[in-house]
């Protein structure tokens, strides 16, 4: 299966001297399209730093990032228009939904389509909201939506430009177990239906069977998760 993103030997250090903290320590990772990967690990293990590096928000100090087979960041130096890459090929889902407060649910998705150069943003936004079962709330502002509804809208927004990679940073932290599982299954559905690669940072071990691949981070190093996990659930 085609690689969505490949990180090779990423390292990043915060601070200098004795106070220096190595957030990424020679991390190498590949996520193929159509795969849902979980990134586990305690707080401070470097998960968010890795997400920022893979999302072209805050590059690593050293190492390379390939996107769709193309080298786009080398040793912290961008070799492509990273904002344009984010616009067209990446989707983000956050711990809090982080919807734009002054836009309705539909407009939150529509603006992402617009940034990605999609001409039929409104139609696509409606389709995505329907796909994620929040079609009835398209005119609601974020503060009028429940936490689960907000996350669904955020996922719809992340899907707006048919991204090759979706990065989700603890997307279920604010949700109860039922909604949490529902959101995780949505990621699986998206990955399998639409061929996107999904990397989910999570502390939540209740729904690990949803993921195709499990990684664990500790002290800036990454390794495959050793814990035996249940068999993957069938795609909905």
């Amino acid at each position, binding site marked *: 299966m085609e690689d969505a993103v490949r990180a090779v030997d990423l390292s990043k250090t915060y601070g200098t001297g004795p106070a220096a903290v190595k957030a990424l320590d020679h991390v190498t990772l590949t996520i193929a399209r159509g795969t849902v990967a979980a990134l586990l690990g305690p707080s401070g293990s470097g998960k968010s730093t890795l997400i*920022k590096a893979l999302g072209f928000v805050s590059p690593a100090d050293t190492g390379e990032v390939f996107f769709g087979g193309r080298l786009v960041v080398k040793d912290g130096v961008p070799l492509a228009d990273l*904002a344009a890459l*984010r616009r067209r090929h990446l989707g*983000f889902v956050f711990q809090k939904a982080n919807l734009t407060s002054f836009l309705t649910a539909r*407009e939150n998705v529509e*603006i992402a389509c617009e*940034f990605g150069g999609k001409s039929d943003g409104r139609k696509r936004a409606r389709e995505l909201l329907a796909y994620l079962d929040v079609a009835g709330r398209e005119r609601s502002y974020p503060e009028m939506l429940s936490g689960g509804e907000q996350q669904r809208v955020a996922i719809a927004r992340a899907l707006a430009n048919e991204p090759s990679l979706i990065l989700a*940073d603890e997307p279920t932290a604010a949700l109860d177990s039922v909604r949490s599982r529902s959101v995780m299954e949505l990621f699986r559905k998206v990955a399998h239906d639409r061929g996107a690669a999904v990397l989910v940072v999570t502390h939540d071990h209740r729904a690990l069977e949803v993921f195709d691949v499990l990684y664990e981070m500790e002290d800036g190093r990454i390794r495959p998760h050793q814990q035996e996990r249940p068999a993957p659930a069938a795609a909905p």
Partner: protein
Amino acid sequence: MNLALRDVRRHLARFVGTAAGLGLLLSVVVAMQGIYAGMVDDATILTRAMHADLWLVQRDTRGPFAEGSRLDPSVEARAAAVPGVRTARPYTYQLIQREHRGAVMRIALVGLGWPDDPGRSLPLVRGRRLQQPHGEMIVDASLGLGIGESLALAGEQYRVVGLTKNALTSGGESVAFVSVADAELIAFDQPAEAAVLERQRVVARLRRTDLGRGQPALEDLATDSRWRAPALASPPVAAVLVQADPHRIAEVREVMRSWGDVSVYSQDEEEALLLGGVVQRARMQIGLFTVILTLTAAVIIMMVMYNLTLEKTHDLAVLKLMGAPRTRLLGLILQQAWLLGALGYAVAFAMGELVFPMFPRRVLITETISLVAPVATMGIVTLASILGLTHVMRIDPSTALEG
């Protein structure tokens, strides 16, 4: 999708409230500029309305508006006799304060040289010029008197026959025009008590002189209430206004400058004396205050714009993370600044239309102010948004990923 309008729609009440506040602030700035312009215009409108080529005033004084000027009435005839002079008219000017219908009125009383000058040059908006030398007056509409209404002055009733608009002094007092004879009558009016005391002083003087002691009948005459001692000379006038043949003004002026009892000023010089002397300090004060107020408004607008941007920091970080083009985010701030400026100016304009006419001093919105104010407002809000724009540029999209 216009993000600026979407944000305004979501926070409409707060945005309109901010625009209204900004509008009130701008209306104060415009009012100060209008008062400044009004003061300059008021200072010159009275002299211009007289349509004089030359002003003859008491020697070494600066004319009736700056200080007391007493000119012998014979100057009028002397001036009229100079070759090249078309007309010479006496002119008096005094400030009086009277009560009318329970309200205090401050009036600048100007005497017109009847019959040559019945107020022909005055900018009448209603009524007519003076048609008789006594008992008629033309007043400025700001006094609140109507045509046909009478005002009691010096024991006589003066009927309003004409109304002018914006005939005000540099101090903002409304002007009333009467004949010079009436102006002098009003100026030299004495209350009954003062008349009695004056008669007693005359009697006392007569008793101290051989003339009085030798002619006792004089004392009887002096105490008779129907008699008044004749003045030794006609009452002085404040100025004589001269109109000359256009090509002979310089020549006429040279002749008059040689007279030992008058100073001669052209119309421009008289205006310059007014602006440079009487209103200069007030003008500078208001001018400086206007500058400070404009700067204050700019700083306040800047802080308002900055706070509006700060409140959106998280939303902007999320949009940046999604790859929003920088121009879209900067456009959001700039468009809101312009909208705020436009709404604020509309509020200021409406306030001006409603409130400025009620100001005790005239607020003159000149064509320059009308054109410059909206442009300046948009310029100020654009500059004021610089802080906000800088903030947008500095927002780190990775902050959207935190918490």
